[in-house]
């Protein structure tokens, strides 16, 4: 009777097809949503120039002399006599082609400035993300499995410290300890590439990884703990599965929230790089942003803001889609829609 509810074998391919369709539809909807958000962000970013205090021309000139010729040149370069919306469309079309205008402070195309710095930031983010993943996830899993024991308390205390320590304070502390008191790591700069850069990035990556790692560890611990206390684990124990399988079942279910958390902390890393790069004087995007803000170098600020928004949008979509791919419950729900 109930067995008739089961799909027939020849329906298998239809099922796969409809899954692909659901995936495509969800991806499409998400992409549209994200594009809309990016459009709003780009508009707000563009408005920055006009909302910033002071005269636009003066802002765009920076510390160059304000001769009438220079003013006229700037007005022409930025089409300041065109209507606002038209200038926005000009700007966004150029931006889509990779042209964000010229840095006021450095007198170079923004794209050139950015590409010179992107490498460091990418390396720093990857390294700290890796450190956080490798340390926090196993720690969270072990902590959950040993709930209430000394090792769990130690891990929880460590994560509390990591969570409570601002990355700049931690960065300076690390500098003080490992670059000044015991000078084994370099204090400043990005190194000369390759292993040397890795060497220079170690302390910043650790400083950055501590906070986000603490968050990831707590989320992992909570996810694994919830699974370990679930009926599915009780039933697995009740039918005599070995501890190895118990762990497998718990981790398989906990993996979904852990992946989501990992995606979430990636966005925290983006915010954190600004601080850490500033402290360690790393020539990356974060320190560039901080300098650009202080010098009111608005084209650079605009470009970085858009770049970060696009990056975070991508992460969000990937995380959302991973739910659909890896969580059979969400998938069953979507397929039934």
């Amino acid at each position, binding site marked *: *009777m*109930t*067995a008739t*509810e*089961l*799909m*027939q*074998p020849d329906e*298998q391919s239809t099922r796969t097809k409809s899954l692909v369709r659901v995936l495509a539809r969800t991806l499409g909807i998400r992409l549209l949503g994200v594009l809309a958000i990016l459009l709003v962000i780009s508009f707000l970013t563009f408005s920055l120039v006009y909302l910033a205090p002071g005269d636009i021309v003066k802002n765009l000139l920076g510390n160059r002399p304000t001769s009438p010729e220079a003013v006229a040149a700037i007005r022409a370069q930025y089409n300041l006599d065109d209507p606002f919306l038209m200038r926005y469309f000009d700007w966004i079309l150029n931006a889509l082609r990779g042209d964000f205008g010229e840095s006021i402070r450095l007198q170079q195309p923004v794209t050139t400035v950015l590409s010179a710095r992107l490498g460091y930031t990418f390396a720093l983010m990857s390294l700290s993300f890796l450190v956080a993943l490798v340390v926090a996830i196993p720690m969270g899993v072990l902590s959950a499995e040993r709930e209430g024991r000394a090792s769990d308390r130690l891990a929880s205390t460590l994560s509390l410290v990591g969570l409570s320590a601002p990355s700049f304070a931690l960065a300076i502390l690390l500098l003080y300890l490992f670059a000044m008191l015991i000078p084994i790591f370099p204090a400043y700069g990005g190194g000369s590439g390759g292993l040397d850069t890795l060497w220079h990035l170690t302390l910043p990556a650790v400083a950055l990884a501590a906070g986000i790692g603490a968050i990831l560890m707590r989320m992992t611990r909570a996810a694994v703990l919830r699974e370990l206390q*679930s*009926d*599915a684990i*009780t*039933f*697995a*124990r*009740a*039918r*005599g*599965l*070995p*501890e190895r*399988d118990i762990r497998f*079942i718990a981790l*398989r*279910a906990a*993996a*979904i929230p852990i992946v989501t958390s990992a995606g979430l902390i990636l966005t925290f890393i983006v915010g954190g790089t600004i601080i850490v790069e500033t402290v360690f004087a790393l020539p990356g995007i974060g320190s560039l942003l901080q300098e650009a803000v202080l010098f009111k170098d608005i084209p650079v600020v605009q470009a970085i803001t858009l770049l970060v928004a696009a990056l975070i949008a991508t992460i969000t979509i990937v995380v959302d889609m991973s739910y659909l791919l*890896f*969580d*059979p*419950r969400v*998938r*069953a*729900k979507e397929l039934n*829609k």
Partner: protein
Amino acid sequence: MSDMNSSAKNSMKSSINSDAKSATKVEKLAAEETVPGVSVRGLSVHGPSGVIVEPLDFDVAPGRTLAIIGESGSGKSMTARAITGLLPRTTSALGNARIDDLQYDLSMTQTQQWHQVRGRRAVLLLQDPFTSLSPVIRCGEQIALTIKARVQAAGGKALSRNEVKAEVTKRLAEVRLPSETAKRFPAELSGGMRQRVAIAAALAAEPRLLIADEPTTALDASNQGGVLDLLRELQLQHQMSVILISHDLGVVSGRADDLFVMRKGEVVESGTTEEVLQSPKHPYTRALLEANPSITDDLQESTPGGKTVLTATKVSKRFGNFQALSDASVSVGKGEIVAIVGESGSGKSTFARCIAGLEQPETGVVTLHGKELSKGRAGRKPEEMQIVFQDPYSTLNPSFTIEQTLAEALRAAEQSKYGVTELLELVELDPELRTRRPSQLSGGQRQRVAIARALAPNPSLLICDESVSALDVSVQAQILDLLARLRDELGLAMLFITHDLGVVTRIANRALVLQNGSIVEQGETGAVLRNPQHPYTQMIVQAAEQDSIRRSDLNRNAADTSAQLNDKESTT
């Protein structure tokens, strides 16, 4: 099993230190020393606030089923868990057990030691098939895990992939599921199918003892019997011992050999199932049997309803692509209880919610005293109709006192003939309870407060949406009595939504049956239940008859019954 009675009585005397003699916590006895089967001695469970289960003894021979029956708080589930060492963290067990040649101490705490018990000796099947299988692992793999664990524990050679696959198919076939089920995730299956997968996964361990803790409570009535009969059949086939835990005396007849009735951690009665069901000795057992609503009970007198209060005509409701309700109509007269019957997903609650305005139907007209009501809650008045919901634990705002809840309901009405005290008296509650919060009341008391709140605006129609389903049978019977009394005293028109045909028999004047959003049958309760016309109605009536207590067999003792039930409702 003839010693069942005496051993249960002995257990009352047996002391906690009975396990002190066994130095080794778990040991294999020589084969000639033992008889096959399960033997439990001095099992007791202790929680942070005292004893949860008093010491008890029992034996279950291979191929036989022991049913343990009790209401919530009776300790039946704790007993089941104690045997497999799966008690909640703050509780512990004493006593010892033997399954075939394996003797073990119930107080042991090492996972390693329990590994000798769980699986090949004993398996615990849980209540809720929606949570007992891992949602992210395919059904076949979950069964395969048990198979591999069994082979490994037996020290055999690891099976090849094909061998495992073949056995998974065999196990699925045993529970009447096609082999494709192996590729499904639990979320893709219905509740009944999930429980079959869980049974297959449990039996793949080839246990000597299967403990099934309310294995069908989460399922629809028409699925329940099938799953229980399947369990029985597989048990005989594999010559397993089975312990069946249930709150429902109705399901054990013909499916269990022996019966324990538990109450507040004690076995109050034990014997063979037929003995206990036919001539219950303990007043509590009799009270339970009496309270259990059964389709075979006497029907309500079919007094015609008074003036028509409510009519709902051709109500339809969609949720996305899902047609939850199509063209359903009903009318209720003054002093009449109309039951809307159906299984989960039949649209019965949707129907009630559309009438109440909690859902906006696409089409349909609802009139009260001939006046058309708006769709949705806007423009509706509290004195038109009220609902009593199912779950007593969330029906009251946990941050309000009882008085606040009732006073608010009284203020909402333009005029009410009651005060808070009168309302509480109306539902037979002590007015002293007014200062309490819901968390300080029992389930039955909360449901009474919910009824009082619903009556506060003096509504013309009372809708009961599965209002007694979440309650223990003895409490259920009292609430049903209360509702019947209120109908008669206040001349209330009542719409009673339920899945339980036993409850319909007890309370409804008329009944209508919903299947997949459409009304398939309606009429006087007697006509619908005793002479069903539609095949679906025939099917659910038959399932209910099978799972119900034949009360004609019983010797009743009304005086005893009421005495027993009254102290059941003491505040927790």
